[in-house]
């Protein structure tokens, strides 16, 4: 168990090139599981390589257990890593691949033997131990790469998309295995993934990156419920959050936005969304962020008013049914219960809790929090039909 801290880390691949990592600040406690997410090319692998010591950093400091290790060679950092490209030794058998790190650290042969057997059992690769990497499928290679890291008991594990090549079933199994293993070993872990569920279920902390900058760092719940900007909000969650453009209007000193659906009777086709008495919002273009699961079918007795909209597309996914409607000329995804099977072209009465929607600045994508000062139940009362 070890703490990991990155202080103002910068990385540039060459003097002429732009910085790949910009002022990275991260700190995780001993035994925590950090998830790194971000679009392709944002610098996740670079950050992992910097932590491992395979790339030198051009500024800042990396601390393990409070000690600066920025200048230390990789093998002295006591870190094990699973590479995105597997990086299996092609001329060695699977068994030798897993045992190599243990041999280098001069473990007694009997112990190596036992460790390889344990890892092979865990990853279901016992039948492959005698093969060379070239004779394995991508998923099998990936599991061997995992095994090579897991055979050691380092201070920190670095996993660079370790499950990306597995089939859906194995992936879920391995995800649970990793979680179990982490709960048992409590080794500090940094884990890169593109998978939403992995990000939400495995991590104690999530860091969302874009263009070498950490956009937000927090618990999965914070990232999900309270994203710092539109990028984070769009990146986490599947299907992604709906973003509906709004123009802020003012009446009686109160700001509100209007949602139009162009369906049903005039009274039912639009609604007004109260934004409170924030004068700074007046006349601005905003983006309204609503998660698909926040939109529900209007229940007759509910306190929330409803909005009628025409169904454009229906996608039954199994656990739920995705329905797409148009609001303010934007396609909006609603995640409904699987027993809801509306017909395309029919009208639905939808509702959502205005207290839980998010507001973003239309140009910068920054989160706006005008309603903070106001009581939530007050807002519900103000949400009224147009």
């Amino acid at each position, binding site marked *: 168990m070890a703490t990991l801290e990155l202080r103002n880390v910068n990385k540039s691949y060459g003097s002429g090139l732009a910085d790949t990592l910009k002022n990275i600040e991260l700190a995780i406690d001993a035994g925590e599981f950090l998830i790194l997410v971000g679009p392709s090319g944002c610098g996740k692998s670079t950050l992992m*390589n910097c932590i*491992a010591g*395979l790339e030198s950093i051009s500024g800042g400091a990396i601390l393990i257990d409070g000690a600066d290790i920025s200048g230390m*060679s*990789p*093998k002295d950092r006591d*870190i*094990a*890593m699973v*590479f*995105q*490209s*597997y*990086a*299996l*030794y*092609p*001329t*060695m058998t699977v068994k030798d691949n897993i045992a*190599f*790190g243990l041999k*280098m*650290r001069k473990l007694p042969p009997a112990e190596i033997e036992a460790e390889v057997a344990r890892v092979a059992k865990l990853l279901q690769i016992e039948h492959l131990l005698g093969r060379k*990497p*070239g004779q394995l499928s991508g998923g099998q*290679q990936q599991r061997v790469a995992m095994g*090579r890291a897991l055979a050691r008991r380092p201070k920190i594990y670095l996993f660079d998309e370790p499950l990306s090549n597995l089939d859906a079933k194995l992936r879920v199994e391995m995800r649970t295995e990793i979680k179990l293993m982490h709960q048992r070993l409590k080794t500090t872990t940094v884990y890169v993934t593109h998978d939403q569920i992995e990000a939400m279920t495995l991590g104690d902390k999530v860091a969302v990156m874009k263009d070498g900058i950490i956009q937000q760092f927090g618990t999965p719940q914070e990232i999900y419920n309270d994203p710092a900007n539109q990028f984070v909000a769009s990146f986490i969650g599947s299907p992604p959050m709906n973003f509906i453009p709004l123009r802020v209007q003012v009446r009686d000193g109160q700001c509100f936005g209007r949602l139009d659906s162009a369906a049903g009777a005039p009274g039912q086709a639009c609604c007004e969304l109260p934004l409170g008495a924030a004068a700074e919002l007046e006349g601005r273009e905003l983006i309204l962020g609503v998660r698909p699961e926040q939109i529900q079918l209007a229940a007759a007795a509910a306190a929330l008013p409803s909005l009628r909209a025409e169904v454009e597309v229906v996608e039954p996914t199994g656990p739920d049914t995705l329905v797409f409607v148009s609001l303010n000329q934007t396609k909006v995804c609603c995640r409904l219960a699987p027993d809801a099977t509306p017909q395309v072209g029919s009208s639905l009465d939808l509702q959502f809790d205005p207290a839980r929607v998010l507001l973003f600045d239309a140009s910068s994508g920054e989160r706006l929090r005008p309603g903070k000062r106001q009581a939530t139940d007050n807002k519900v009362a103000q949400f009224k039909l147009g």
Partner: protein
Amino acid sequence: MTSVSVAQRRSSDVLLPPGEGGAKRRMRAVSLSRLAIHATLILACAVYLVPLLVMLLTSFKTPDDIRSGNLLSIPDVFTVIGWVKAWDGVGGYFWNSVKITIPAVLISTLLGALNGYVLAMWRFRGSQLFFGLLLFGCFLPFQVILLPASFTLGQLGLANTTEGLVLVHVVYGLAFTTLFFRNFYVSIPEALVRAARLDGAGFFTIFGRILLPMSVPIIMVSLIWQFTQIWNDFLFGVVFASGDTQPITVALNNLVNTSTGAKEYNVDMAAAMIAGLPTLLVYILAGKYFLRGLTAGAVKG
């Protein structure tokens, strides 16, 4: 040669099974172009093989036989007297060549592999420039380095020794072997070296345990190239060695150019064959490994 063309005709017959007219016509077109290809190949073979045949035939003839018959005639009596005399003349120098070539080939290949490993996997500031300058060595004509090399050998006290000649061959060959290995290693994913570093392996362990075992094909290329170059070298041999340390190429030249007595063509031919056999052998033996290495060394990303 006749048997080859008979085989050729037979194989073209096989290409013409009874069938549809159109298919038959296409087949005939195919077999015609095949015939042309084979004819060209056979011709090229002949051009290269006839001199060898002449040498072989002549080396087994008696001097009288050579004077009376033509070049391609079968010997009246097969005699190995030419080979025995040739071995007496150049046999000692044959071993000189072995003593020069084997260490020089092994050392230059090993150093080239190390150089290539560093240049591909452990880039340092200016390593590209270093590699560029090293490449320059591939284009240096032999003659240019004669004087500096003999001066250096003299300073080192290695003039006219086998060790000195080995040193010259190693230095001259390094540019080529480094180029081979460096270009081979840049195609190997760097992540392999990184994984090994995290596993705790050091510079030489990574080289010996991970990269060298993957390098069989390029090692074969380097060995064949260096062996051919060094065994066949004449200029360095004649300049940097004298008397008892001369390689076989120089000895062969001396043997053929002796002006005393009658020309013994059978001895000349046999000596030339002796001088040329090792390179032939290396191609036949290592060429096979070379192909095997190429197919077995296929590595997935």
